[in-house]
C-alpha cells in the first residue's frame, strides 16, 4: 500500500537553522494495516505525515503509494488516495459554508464541474450519514459549520473524509483537542469506519493507552527515525509500563521530559 524508502527531510538546508527532521526512514505499510505512531515532541511524526501527504517535498528518498511513485506528486493529487484529519478541528471543514455544502464538496474528489449535484436525494443521503454521528446534525444541514462545537466539527470532518472514499487515513492526533467525552465519540466512530471500509490507517497519538489498544502495529519515533516497530503478537502483549521501559532501554538514558510525555 505505502512504501517509503530512505526518506530524508532537511528543513532550511544550508542555513544556520538547518534541521534534519527525518533521516533515512524506511517504512512498509500493508493494505489493511492500522498503525499507531508514538514519540515525543519533535521526533518527526507530523513531518512524516506531511511528507506522505505531500505538504512538504522530500529532500531525498522515494514514496510509493499503491505501487505508484508519488514522491513529487502534488498534495491535492495524493489526496485522491489519502484522507487526512488534523488535530485542529477547524482545518477539515469550511466554517463559512453550510453542512450540506461541506459534504457535497467531500462527496466528489477533484476539480468539480458545473453540475448541481446537491439535490433531494443527496440531502437524504447526507441526513442518513449524519445520523450515524448521533449528534443531532442531521437536522442542521443548512447551518454554517462555524456554528458547531469542536467535537461536532471533528466528527463531521471524519464523516466527510470517509465520504470522499480514501484508501488510506492519516490521523494526526485528531482527538487531542477535544474533551474526553467527544474524544471518545470521535474515536469510536473512527474505528467503526476503519473496520467497515477496511481503511489502511496511520494514527499519531500521545495517548499510550490508545496506541496500545488500537491497531495491529505500533511504531515509536525518535529524532527523525523509527526506533521501535511492534507487530501483531508483540503488540498484543504490550502494556504502558512495558512500552515506556522499552523506550528507556533503547535510549539508554532517562529523559524526564520524554517520560512525562509518554506516560500520559
Amino acid at each position: 500500500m505505502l512504501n517509503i524508502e530512505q526518506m530524508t527531510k532537511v528543513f532550511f538546508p544550508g542555513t544556520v537553522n538547518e534541521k534534519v527532521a527525518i533521516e533515512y526512514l524506511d517504512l512498509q505499510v500493508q493494505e489493511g494495516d492500522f498503525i499507531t505512531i508514538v514519540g515525543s515532541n519533535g521526533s518527526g511524526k507530523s513531518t512524516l505525515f506531511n511528507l506522505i501527504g505531500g505538504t512538504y517535498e522530500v529532500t531525498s528518498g522515494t514514496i510509493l503509494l499503491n505501487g505508484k511513485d508519488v514522491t513529487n506528486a502534488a498534495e491535492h493529487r495524493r489526496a485522491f488516495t489519502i484522507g487526512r484529519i488534523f488535530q485542529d478541528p477547524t482545518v477539515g471543514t469550511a466554517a463559512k459554508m453550510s453542512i450540506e455544502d461541506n459534504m457535497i464538496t467531500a462527496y466528489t474528489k477533484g476539480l468539480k464541474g458545473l453540475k448541481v449535484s446537491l439535490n433531494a436525494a443527496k440531502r437524504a443521503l447526507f441526513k442518513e450519514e449524519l445520523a450515524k454521528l448521533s449528534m443531532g446534525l442531521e437536522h442542521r444541514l443548512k447551518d454554517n459549520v462555524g456554528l458547531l462545537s469542536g467535537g461536532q466539527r471533528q466528527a463531521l470532518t471524519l464523516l466527510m473524509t470517509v465520504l470522499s472514499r480514501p484508501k488510506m487515513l492519516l490521523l494526526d492526533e485528531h482527538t487531542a483537542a477535544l474533551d474526553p467525552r467527544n474524544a471518545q465519540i470521535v474515536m469510536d466512530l473512527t474505528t467503526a469506519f476503519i473496520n467497515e471500509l477496511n481503511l489502511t490507517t496511520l494514527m499519531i497519538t500521545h495517548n499510550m493507552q490508545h496506541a496500545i489498544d488500537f491497531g495491529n502495529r505500533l511504531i515509536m519515533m525518535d529524532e527523525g527515525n523509527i526506533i521501535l516497530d511492534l507487530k501483531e503478537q508483540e503488540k498484543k502483549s504490550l502494556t504502558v509500563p512495558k512500552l515506556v521501559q522499552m523506550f528507556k532501554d533503547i535510549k539508554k538514558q532517562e529523559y524526564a521530559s520524554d517520560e512525562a510525555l509518554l506516560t500520559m
Partner: protein
Amino acid sequence: MLEGIFVDGLIFSIMVIGVLISYRILDFADLTCDGSFATGAAVAAMVIVNGGGSGTALVLAAISGAIAGAITATIHNELKIPGLLAGILTMTMLYSINIRILGGRANVPLLRIDTLYTQFPRFFSFFSTSWALLVGTLLIAFIIKELIDIFFRTDLGISIGAMGSNEQMIISMGANPKTLKIIGMALSNALIALSGGLLAQYQGFADANLGQGMVVQGLAAIMIGEFLFDSNKISLITLRVMLGAIIYKALMFFGRYYGYYINLTPSDLKLLTGVLVIISLIIAQTRSAASSADARKKALRRNKERREHQKEDQQHA
C-alpha cells in the same frame, strides 16, 4: 431623476457582485478591480466605435476582465505573493494598457453612436425613455444575478466558496486551489469589466480613470447590504449586495445634489465613501459588542435568579 439613480445603481451592482466574489467568497483582497473596470469600459467603447455592436461589446469587455483577473490570480499563485500585491501589479499595468486600448487617448466619447442605451428606448418603446433604460438595465442585472446564483450552487461554485473559507480542506478533497482561484478571479473581474462596459454605454464615454476608487465603493455597497439582513444563502447575499449598491448610489446622489449647501464638491465624494466604509465598520463592531454585552447581562440575571431560587429552596427546607 429617480430612474437614473436606479440605472446607475444596477450597473454598479454588477461590479459589486464581482467585488463580493473576490473579497467575501474567495477571501482575496483584489485591487485589479480599479483597472479592470476601466478596461471593460475601454474595450466596450472601442468595439462600439469600430462598429462591433453593443452586445459584442459587453461580451468582449467581460472576456478582457476575465483575462485581467486570471493574470492577477496567476501572479499570486506562481510567484507566491499576497493577493493584494498581485492585484496592485495588474491594476498598475492595466492603466497603461487601457490607454493603449483607447488608442492612446485617455477618453473616448460615444456620441451619436448606437449603444445599448440608445437601443433600449426603441426596444421598450411602450415605456417612456427613462423607464425603458431602467427596465433594460434591470433585465441585464437580474439575468447576471441569477446566473451567479446558479453558479455558486454548482459543485464548482461550492468548492470555490469552500476554498475561500478553508484552503486546506479543498486540497484534502483533491482539488487544486490554484485552478479554483484563477476561475474565481476571472469570474469576479469579468463581472467588474462587464459593469464598466455597461457604464461606458450609459454615460456615453469611456475614460482611463473610470476605475479609480471602485474597490472602496464596492466594499461600501457590500457593507451597506450586510446591514439589511443576515443570510448564508447565495441568492439572498447577491440580492442584498444589489440593494446595497443602489442605496450607495442614492446616498452619493444626494451627497452631490444637496452637498453644495454645505460646500461639498463632487471631488469630495471619495472622502465621503471612505467615511461611509469606516462608519459601517464601526456600526458593525458596536453592534456585535452590544449583543455580547446583552448576552452577558442576561447570563448574570439568570445566575442571580438561580441563586435566589436556591436560597428560597433552602429556606423552605
